[in-house]
């Protein structure tokens, strides 16, 4: 077999820290395949744009790691042009056992668009809450029984909040988040969904949507949240001046570093209102194959299997705090010891059974829809718009944009 070189594009240059070693492991294991990384895209959005542009000029990479929320749009556009590979057949060819041992259905669902498998989930995360235990104690909270409902979270945050010392209760930065992840989380944890079952309109034009907006507003009014940039929130939490902070487990490594030994850091599950239907959206990215030549497609499939395999996932998870996307990775042979040493990382795994896909809107207007929704959410959180009026506006604007796409 002639050596094959795969052009691989991933987002976030800093992910080089695990992509590079994973690729090295892969090449050691598969001497016939060389991995050549393209200059990483600065973000999911920009990676997405780059690929869309390159589709026009036939310069697509062979493998691309697409953000889950942009995958549907990417897959649909490229499928129309015949520039993306469907993975169902390839996976089926590996046999049922292989599939069952490695990928849970929930994880596979993350890579499906319109029922077809286009990507294998590589990084996955669902929102968790970071707690400053020192502040929790001071506010009379029990560090070993952290709240599991939003009311309790807000109550605790309210007690932590001491503006005189520059300490805020909570930061749930949905108003500044670059995508709709945290918003969607608040909808789905209450058993709601983004879309109506026929995907023709928004599905949260109801009590659930209203409750979400009310909760957001309560963060500010009762929980002592200040409306600042989401990066600034993380900085402030790291500096020990925020009690509760909602973010991705992927931030664990950085936040642990920022905290140092200034205070005790603990993570806890994302509260779930509807214990029955409640779900939390999974963020992260899936690897897709865009190669055109057969040899490359085959090599790419080998690569995809590897990066979603346990050895690779061990590397990734240890470095970031992401959820492993491989079933075997959690095992004693791989991540078991590490999780024991880093209990904070376990939170994400503990709520993994609640993980659902991170949905998008049909029509290819996702970025624009989130920008519109975010503006309204900001106004609601600032109190310039009642939750009722805000919801009406979000629903109207989203429906309109879904149709105009």
């Amino acid at each position, binding site marked *: 077999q002639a050596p094959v070189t795969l052009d691989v594009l991933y987002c*976030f240059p800093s992910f080089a820290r695990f992509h590079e070693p994973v690729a090295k492991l892969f090449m050691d294991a598969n001497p016939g395949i060389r991995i050549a990384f393209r*200059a990483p895209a600065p*973000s999911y959005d920009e990676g997405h744009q780059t690929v869309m542009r390159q589709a026009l000029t036939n*310069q697509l990479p062979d493998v691309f790691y697409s953000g889950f929320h942009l995958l549907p749009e990417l897959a649909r556009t490229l499928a129309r042009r015949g520039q993306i590979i469907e993975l169902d057949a390839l996976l089926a060819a590996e046999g049922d056992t292989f599939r069952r041992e490695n990928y849970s259905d929930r994880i596979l669902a993350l890579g499906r668009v319109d029922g077809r498998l286009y990507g294998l989930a590589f990084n996955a995360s669902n929102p968790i809450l970071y707690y400053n235990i020192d502040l929790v104690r001071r506010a009379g909270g029990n560090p070993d029984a952290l709240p599991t409902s939003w009311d309790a979270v807000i109550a605790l945050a309210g007690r932590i909040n001491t503006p005189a010392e520059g300490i805020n209760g909570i930061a749930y930065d949905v108003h500044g988040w670059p995508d709709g992840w945290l918003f969607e989380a608040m909808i789905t944890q209450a058993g709601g969904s983004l879309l109506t079952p026929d995907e023709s309109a928004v599905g949260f034009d109801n009590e659930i949507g209203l409750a979400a907006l009310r909760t957001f507003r309560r963060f500010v009014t009762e929980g002592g949240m200040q409306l600042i940039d989401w*990066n600034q929130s993380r900085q402030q939490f790291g500096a020990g001046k925020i009690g509760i902070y909602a973010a*991705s487990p992927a931030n664990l490594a950085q936040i642990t570093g920022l905290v140092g030994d200034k205070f005790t850091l603990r993570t806890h599950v994302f509260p779930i209102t509807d214990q029955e239907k409640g779900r939390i959206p999974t963020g992260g990215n899936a690897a897709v194959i865009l190669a055109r030549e057969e040899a490359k497609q085959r090599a790419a499939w080998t690569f995809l299997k590897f990066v979603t395999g346990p050895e690779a996932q061990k590397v990734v998870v240890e470095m970031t*705090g992401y959820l492993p996307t491989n079933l075997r990775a959690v095992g004693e042979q791989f991540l078991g010891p590490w999780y024991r040493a880093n209990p904070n990382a376990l939170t994400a795994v503990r709520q993994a059974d609640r993980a659902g896909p991170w949905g998008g809107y049909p029509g290819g207007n996702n970025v624009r829809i989130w920008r519109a929704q975010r503006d309204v959410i900001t106004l609601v959180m600032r109190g310039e718009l009642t939750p009722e009026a805000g919801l009406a506006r979000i629903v109207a604007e989203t429906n309109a944009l879904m149709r105009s796409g």
Partner: protein
Amino acid sequence: MLGRIVALVVLGLGGAVMLLPFVWMVLTSFRPAAAVFEGFGASAFIGFENYARALTTAPLLRFMLNGVIVCAGILVVQLAVAIPAAYALAKLPFRGRGLLFGLVLAALCIPIQVPALPLYLGLAHTGLLDTYFAMMFPFFLSVFAIFLFRQFFKSFPDEIIQAARLDGVGEFEIVWRFVVPAALPAIAAFSIFSIVAHWNDLYWPLIVITETRLAPPPLGMLYFRDAETGSNYGALMAGATIITAPLVLAFLVARRRFIEGITMTGLK
């Protein structure tokens, strides 16, 4: 005396505002992660650890080399194109001179974002994406340089040019033998403009470059600035310090000529 003190105080305050971000940048580059947000007070100091990390996490030196190649390439072509054109506009009568100058003035107002998309499509069509050329091409013509040099050349004495013609010096030789040496301050001034603009440009390289080995310095900063898992602040600041330093040095070296050059181009 009082006026002097007031002036110094005002200048000092302004200078502090100018410097503050840089001071914090450099301070942070020497701090461990846990001490990053501790303001300007004394804090833990970890020496050059962040610098070491900056230089190993991303091939910063390679990026800087790319930056040098791109800036130098752009500058050389800009000068090679703009100097003769400006000379022609200032000193040589030819048909279409007025039109050309009008177009130059109009182009002066067009930022790169305007022709970016058609340029991208054109480069893609010719298979030139992912080359140094693609990074440099849109900047090969600096209408600003043409404008600046024309102002300068206009004040260059006609009589020297005529003397040179009488001495048998060819027109092209006149330019590089007599006009260019006299224009060195203006060229220095423009070079600073050009290098500052292109060293820190991120917009265009992001569009046309996919290969890491061609990336310019600001792209290197992206390796430390990360929206998804959080930035490595110390290394980010160390990297920023590293890539800013050459510009500051360049300004220090060319400062005299730079100011002189602006004065001489008659922008005064």
